[in-house]
């Protein structure tokens, strides 16, 4: 037998309360499992650190009925249960029609099988896909070690170009930038009840061991997206090396509100270039109140990468991201980009 997974205990939770009960009872030793595409790989590779012991108890939350659902209420918004698969999201008519950039982002994740298994909650809390993090031999900063191996090592592809702190991982989620552009809320349940975290405050900086505010005994139960004003247009674009499987070298989620040919409001989020989905308010300001026009857009795209501080091997990400921002803004503005 292969048995790369060490002995574990397993329980199917039938309610959110039950999942949290087991989490609190077993503490550090337990983890919830949904799609498992990230968690089981981490367990097989025995990735651990002082704050992330290898789990001994797995609590299956796919057996909680109300976690797997997409409910749209006109005027209010879209509520997606945490274990809804990425495939269900990309193929939902309501998501496609009302929140198209989320459907596009979900479709851009990895490959068919991963989207059939992977969930929206898991996509938000996946651990770094930094290749030093993923092998046990490198006890890097994120695992409680003294240093980041990527800075002096190989960091051409899936790393930050923004020079924000110790860990230079690039946040791998494709759905997170889209959800941030759409102003989503992450509903989190824990021992003391339920809280709603605006997604702007959900991700943490590179100084922290974990990438999100989720505590070890908390779980995501729902992702909520408020109804968008009727003049909203959006676009999600991802640039990657391979046409399938691959993480973003850079991605852009842009959400614009346009009235009478000028921008009322704009939100621009970059993915794959920072340790968390990175909002660029200055680029948004460069659009607000301006007329819809290619020159305005080009200027905003240039502003979007102004803060860039690439590593030795990933300077190419700066023009790549600038162009991607421009293309996303052109497409969301209904303009044809010249090639």
């Amino acid at each position, binding site marked *: *037998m*292969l*048995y*790369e*997974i*060490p*002995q*574990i*205990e*397993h*329980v*199917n939770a*039938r*309610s*959110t*309360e*039950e999942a*949290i*009960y*087991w989490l*609190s009872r*077993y503490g550090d030793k337990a983890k919830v*499992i949904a799609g*498992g*595409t990230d968690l*089981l*790989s981490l367990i*097989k*590779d025995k990735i651990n650190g002082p704050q992330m012991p290898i789990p001994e108890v*797995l*609590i*299956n939350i*796919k057996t909680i009925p*109300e976690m797997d*659902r997409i*409910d749209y*209420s006109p005027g*209010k*918004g879209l*509520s997606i249960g945490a274990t809804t698969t990425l*495939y269900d999201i990309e193929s939902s008519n309501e998501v496609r029609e009302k929140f198209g950039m989320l459907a596009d982002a979900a479709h851009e994740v*990895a*490959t*068919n*099988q*991963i989207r*059939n*298994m992977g969930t929206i909650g898991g996509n938000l809390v996946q651990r770094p896909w930094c290749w030093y993090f993923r092998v046990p031999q490198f006890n890097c900063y994120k695992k409680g070690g003294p240093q980041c191996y990527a800075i002096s090592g190989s960091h051409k592809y899936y790393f930050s170009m923004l020079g924000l702190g110790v860990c230079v991982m690039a946040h791998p989620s494709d759905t997170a930038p889209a959800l941030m552009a759409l102003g989503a809320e992450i*509903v989190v*349940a824990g*021992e*003391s*009840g*339920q809280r709603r975290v605006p997604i702007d405050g959900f991700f943490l900086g590179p100084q922290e061991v974990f990438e999100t505010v989720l505590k070890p005994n908390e779980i995501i*139960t*729902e992702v*909520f997206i408020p109804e968008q004003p009727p003049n909203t247009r959006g676009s999600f674009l991802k640039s990657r090396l391979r*046409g*399938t*499987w691959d993480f973003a070298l850079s991605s852009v989620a842009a959400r614009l509100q346009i009235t009478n040919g000028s921008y009322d409001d704009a939100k621009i989020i970059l993915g794959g270039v920072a340790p968390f989905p990175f909002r660029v308010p200055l680029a948004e300001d460069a659009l607000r109140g301006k007329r819809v026009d290619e020159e305005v857009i080009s200027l905003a795209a240039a502003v979007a990468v102004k803060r860039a501080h690439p590593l030795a091997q990933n300077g190419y990400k700066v023009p790549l991201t600038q162009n991607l921002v421009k293309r996303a803004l052109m497409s969301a503005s209904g303009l044809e980009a010249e090639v």
Partner: protein
Amino acid sequence: MTSIGELRLHMEPKTLVDENRHQNQPRRVRRIVLSINGDSHSIEVDARSTLAEVLRENLRMTGTKLGCNRSECGTCTLIMDGRTVFSCTILAVEAEGKCIETIEGLASGSDLNPLQKAFIKNDALQCGYCIPAMLMAATALLRVKMEPTEDDVRQGIAGVYCRCGAYPNIVRAVLDVSRGQVDC
């Protein structure tokens, strides 16, 4: 919109205090029933066993292959509830109650199905290691897209690596069978 509502955690949750209480404890070993290619198999499995391990080792259905064993190569692809998944990354205990289809279910006896014949006719195999996964991915695709374009086929099998690079003939085989160009 439904919301989960207030959580009461000072006591054991309701779902634990019913008569099934003792059945729903974390366990290392569990007896499960798997439905594979229409047959039910009742087996005792380790909670840590993946579906691929149980198929290959406990049930001796070795048609499903393993490559990376961690969601990276697609070699272990099979169909669960109509969708392609990686059997190396699904715990067998979580596959209970699902409709599992493997490569063993394609042929009837020694009679290969049209898709399998198309693979042979188009010389779509080199070492053959990825072929069970390719066939399952193509089967899932052809159920939802009866007349796929070449691009659909490429997308449909994109999650399976072929180390031999037999892709062109694999794509041709899938297109052939969708166009009815295989004698059965």
